[in-house]
């Protein structure tokens, strides 16, 4: 007999762990996507990650230098107890999952059948698809994870050696196999010559929609060495992204004892410094056709820096003679990824969106699978946005900025 009352069902997944399927972890994201009809709109995720160390054995096979490659292979095959060869990951990487409270940050050890790997072409692709489909994402820009620290590697040449190997591996194993996945290629910024070679080698690669500088480094972005790099990108119409990160060994950060405190500051500070140099040295005037994207610092820092730089510039314009308008006006022409969107003070969020001209300049980013990831609903549910702005931020702004047909 049909009573009209839905039966009570028991969800067999009592606790989500590192072994839980991404589709189960993100079941509520799928529900949100269905409720908001995300499958009917274009959503571009401009910052997601894979854990490249899980494929490190494959990646090191692409290292050019035969001696470095032999060392790397020897270590991967026969040595235990140390991080993967060549990487200098920050000690803070051990704290990201809050002591196991956020399992998807710690590891994704979920079951993937061999037949699925064969069909997709790589385990990374199976995991990526499970997540982007759950969230209703149509195009996803993927970045590495521990390699974001390579700008601080004590061996000057390691960033370029590993960066090139990673880029080659990614083209062959990820980008050529899933047209929904794109990247802003890893740019070995400590070595301007290698950076230029990277643009020449990978600029036309499938899935390459721009180039990415890992922001954790002590290199001034206005140094003359970099002008040819910016020129090459501008000529090719390829955006330049600054992907933020943290660095606990930074002298100021070393005063901080808790991961969250350090993360809150350090993930912003690197981009604050680069943005300040970028503006005050007039790089927007020197390269007016080069779009710049600030990635994974959230947004609350931008109005703060706009106010600081405008205030300073108006008193000391002789120190920034290339500027023809206020620093904030240049900043308003740049692009920003939204994640992690600080939504706890909604009036401030609304003002921030107005100050950065979010309607045309803001790009949705999930940062999946990291601990502070944002689903597309975070943008969709903002109470002050009109529908056109939502659609722009979730996908259309990115569609205008990047060539996703590659």
């Amino acid at each position, binding site marked *: 007999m049909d009573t009209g009352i839905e039966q009570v*069902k*028991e*969800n067999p997944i009592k606790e*989500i762990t590192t072994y839980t399927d991404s589709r189960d972890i993100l079941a509520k994201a799928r529900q949100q996507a269905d409720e908001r009809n995300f499958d009917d709109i274009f959503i571009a995720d401009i910052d997601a990650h894979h854990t490249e160390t899980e494929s490190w054995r494959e990646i090191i096979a692409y290292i050019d230098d035969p001696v470095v490659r032999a060392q790397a292979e020897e270590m991967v095959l026969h040595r235990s107890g140390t991080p993967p060869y060549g990487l200098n990951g920050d000690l803070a990487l051990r704290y990201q999952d809050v002591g*196991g409270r*956020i399992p998807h940050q710690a590891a994704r050890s979920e079951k993937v059948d061999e037949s699925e790997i064969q069909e997709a072409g790589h385990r990374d692709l199976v995991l990526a698809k499970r997540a982007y489909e759950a969230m209703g994402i149509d195009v996803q820009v993927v970045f590495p994870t521990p390699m974001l620290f390579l700008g601080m590697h004590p061996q000057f040449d390691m960033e370029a050696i590993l960066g090139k190997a990673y880029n080659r591996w990614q083209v062959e194993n990820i980008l050529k196999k899933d047209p929904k996945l794109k990247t802003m290629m890893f740019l070995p910024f400590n070595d301007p010559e290698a950076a230029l070679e990277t643009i020449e080698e990978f600029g036309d690669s499938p899935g390459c929609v721009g180039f990415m500088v890992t922001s954790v480094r002590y290199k001034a972005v206005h140094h003359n060495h970099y002008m040819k790099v910016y020129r090459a990108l501008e000529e090719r119409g390829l955006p330049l992204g600054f992907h933020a990160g943290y660095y606990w060994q930074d002298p100021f950060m070393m005063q901080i004892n808790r991961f969250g405190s350090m993360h809150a500051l350090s993930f912003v500070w690197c981009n604050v410094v680069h943005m300040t140099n970028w503006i005050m040295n007039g790089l927007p005037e020197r390269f007016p056709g080069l779009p710049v994207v600030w990635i994974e610092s959230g947004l609350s820092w931008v109005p703060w820096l706009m106010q600081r730089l405008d205030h300073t510039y108006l008193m000391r314009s002789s120190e920034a003679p290339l500027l023809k308008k206020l620093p904030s006006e240049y900043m308003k022409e740049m692009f920003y990824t939204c994640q992690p969107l600080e939504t706890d003070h909604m009036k401030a969020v609304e003002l921030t969106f107005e100050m950065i001209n979010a309607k045309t300049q803001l790009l949705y980013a999930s940062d999946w699978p990291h601990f502070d*990831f944002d689903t597309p*609903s975070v943008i969709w549910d903002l109470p002050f946005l009109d529908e056109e702005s939502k659609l722009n931020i979730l996908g259309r702004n990115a569609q205008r900025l990047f060539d996703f047909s590659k």
Partner: protein
Amino acid sequence: MADLYVGKTEEFEDRDRKIIAQGSLEIGVFHVDGEFYAYENNCVHQGGPACQGKIINRVEEVIHETEKTAHGLKFSETDVHIVCPWHGYEYNVRDGRHPGNKNIRLRPFKVEIKDGEVYVVV
């Protein structure tokens, strides 16, 4: 108002739970220190599966009573938290509230025990 059958009390170990669903409403039913508690499986933060994360005691900081010096961290002997696995929001299992903001609270449901059976009132 309706009573949703969850299961027999004997099916719950200490610090155990069940996640039940009726239609789109999902509820986590917890058994901690002999008591039952129920909350909607929907994190206040981003709608994550707050009832499917770790059950873990609240972390406290050890501060000397008069000198106010810090002496490390310890787990609370009384306060038990449930943690949303999406982003780590923590809620006290006894009242569903976040430790830093009492207004951030999981939607609670009344639990009734009848003849050794657990029901949630919705």
